[in-house]
């Protein structure tokens, strides 16, 4: 449906390099990256607000690279301030006069806007504003919705509600391209993810693929994986980290310098050595315990600092405290190895 081919965009001190992505009808794409990665510039180029220095954009095989914004058939929703402040909610939604009434009413009901139709944007909460902005984007019958950090200015209480709406829009068959720096959003919403870093598209795929095989340490960190280390290959499936500890992996990457990635969820804590099939066992000391809403992050010093994620119940049962000695255990198959970046 939408082919982005070799898109390049040059700014003083920044280069968006050869971006290639194919977005199929009905897909929910998340473009994930830190600020300054070029994700918003890419979205602006897709929308037509910026002209690429090189490359083409095709919609249904038709070259739209130089088609003006208002003829592209895309709707653009920004983080904030996208509603027309001098028009009521109703007039905002029906901004384009060619709106079909049946479609309009369907969307008003869907987004639960009946009670706020006569209000003005300044009277709305952040969640209501974003509901209106999304509804307005749908009313215009756009083929693709381009969302620029649509949840970043929404109150925490309304974020979940908007996320559910976005998932529902996806189920209804809308094609969505959503730019964000928030990994949680990508985790909950994405069907496909494109990860950007310093103007480059460094990995695309489903979230499962990316979590399983991050192509480099940056992606691993971005996905929230905290245990990422440079390692030296010793041979025989063994890798040495910081000349201190040796880790066994089932993956053999034939390079001298590698990156070791271990998901904190794959680490098992025990108060004594375990007689188990787990190949990696280390004794260490708890250096910090970070309480999160849904889990607990335990930092253990085994020569390197490893993060282990456990439940609140486990924390209470094991009565773990700062400074306790503890055993770290994980399988060789939980150790992901990738070549170290040059």
């Amino acid at each position: 449906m939408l082919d982005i081919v070799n898109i390049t965009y040059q700014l003083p001190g920044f280069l968006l390099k050869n971006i290639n992505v194919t977005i199929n009808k009905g897909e929910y794409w998340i473009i994930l990256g830190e600020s300054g990665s070029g994700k918003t510039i890419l979205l602006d180029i897709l929308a037509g607000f910026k002209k690429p220095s090189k490359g083409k954009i095709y919609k249904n095989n038709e070259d739209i690279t130089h088609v003006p914004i208002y003829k592209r058939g895309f709707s653009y929703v920004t983080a904030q301030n996208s509603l027309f402040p001098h028009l009521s909610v109703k007039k905002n939604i029906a901004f384009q006069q060619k709106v079909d009434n049946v479609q309009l009413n369907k969307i008003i009901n869907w987004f639960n806007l009946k009670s706020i139709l006569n209000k003005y944007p300044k009277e709305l909460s952040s969640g209501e504003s974003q509901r209106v902005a999304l509804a307005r984007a749908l009313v215009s019958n756009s083929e693709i919705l381009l969302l620029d950090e649509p949840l970043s200015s929404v109150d925490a209480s309304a974020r979940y509600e908007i996320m559910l709406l976005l998932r529902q829009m996806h189920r209804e068959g809308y094609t969505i391209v959503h730019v964000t720096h928030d990994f949680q959003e990508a985790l909950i919403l994405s069907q496909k993810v494109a990860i950007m870093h310093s103007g480059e598209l460094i990995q695309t795929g489903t979230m499962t693929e990316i979590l399983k095989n991050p192509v480099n340490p940056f992606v691993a960190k971005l996905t929230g994986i905290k245990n990422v280390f440079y390692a030296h290959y010793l041979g025989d499936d063994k890798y040495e980290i910081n000349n201190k500890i040796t880790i066994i992996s089932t993956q053999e990457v034939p390079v001298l310098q590698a990156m070791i990635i271990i998901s904190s969820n794959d680490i098992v804590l025990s108060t004594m050595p375990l007689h188990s099939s787990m190949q990696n066992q280390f004794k260490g000391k708890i250096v910090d315990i970070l309480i999160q809403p849904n889990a607990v992050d335990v930092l253990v010093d085994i020569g390197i600092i490893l993060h282990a994620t456990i439940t609140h119940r486990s924390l209470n049962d094991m009565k773990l405290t700062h400074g306790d000695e503890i055993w770290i255990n994980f399988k060789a198959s939980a150790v992901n190895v990738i070549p170290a970046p040059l």
Partner: protein
Amino acid sequence: MKNKSLFNWIVMILSAIVLLFIIAPLFKLLIGSIWTSWQPLSNDIEVWDSIRRTLIVAFITTLIFSVGAIPLAYLLAKREFIFKKLIISIIDIPLVIPHSAAGIALLTIWSENSFISHGIQIVDNWLGISLAMAFVSLPLLIQSAREGFSQISENIEKSALSLGASPTKVFLRISLPLAWKHIVTGFIMMFARGMSEFGAVVVIAYYPMTSSVLLFERMNQFGLSYVQPIAAVIVLISLIVFIILRILAHKIK
């Protein structure tokens, strides 16, 4: 607290001095002379003609020049182009040069032999008055409208375009209404400034006389006490027009 109180007193006293400086002469002019000399003044057709002429020319001038000034303000606020900062500075020049010099500059470019005039006469006619008023007062409209357009979030215009609205529709239905408050303020300021202009007008069009030129002439001929009631009437009418426009503008908002 004591310091704060002392600070408040100082601020209030200094403010009062400045306010008094503005209000006192106007008050003295209006109260002190107008009632005593109203009878002869009411029959002075030349005075009333000049006032009417000034109001009409200033208003029409502001209206006509708005047609170009508002799009220019929009361009300056919303587009990036080479020499933009220079252009913004140039627009302000009429405010800082002596207005008689502005009049001379206008005369130079509109002289009979210049490429721009094509034989159009501006000396001693309504067109000359209008050009003189516009030259010195346009910056006020342009800068105020530019400020208004600048305050519109880029996201709003981006959203409107992406919804399928053409740039013209976005300008007319989004940008113009949102900048309206600043445009109206600029319009009033340009009108008021044009109405009060003397230096540029007197160089180009001594006749037909605007109220400020008439005041100048009567002052030279008959002296201060004679001209006081006329000045009072002109100030009073200017104030009334200014207040009416402000009220109208407020209602439009």
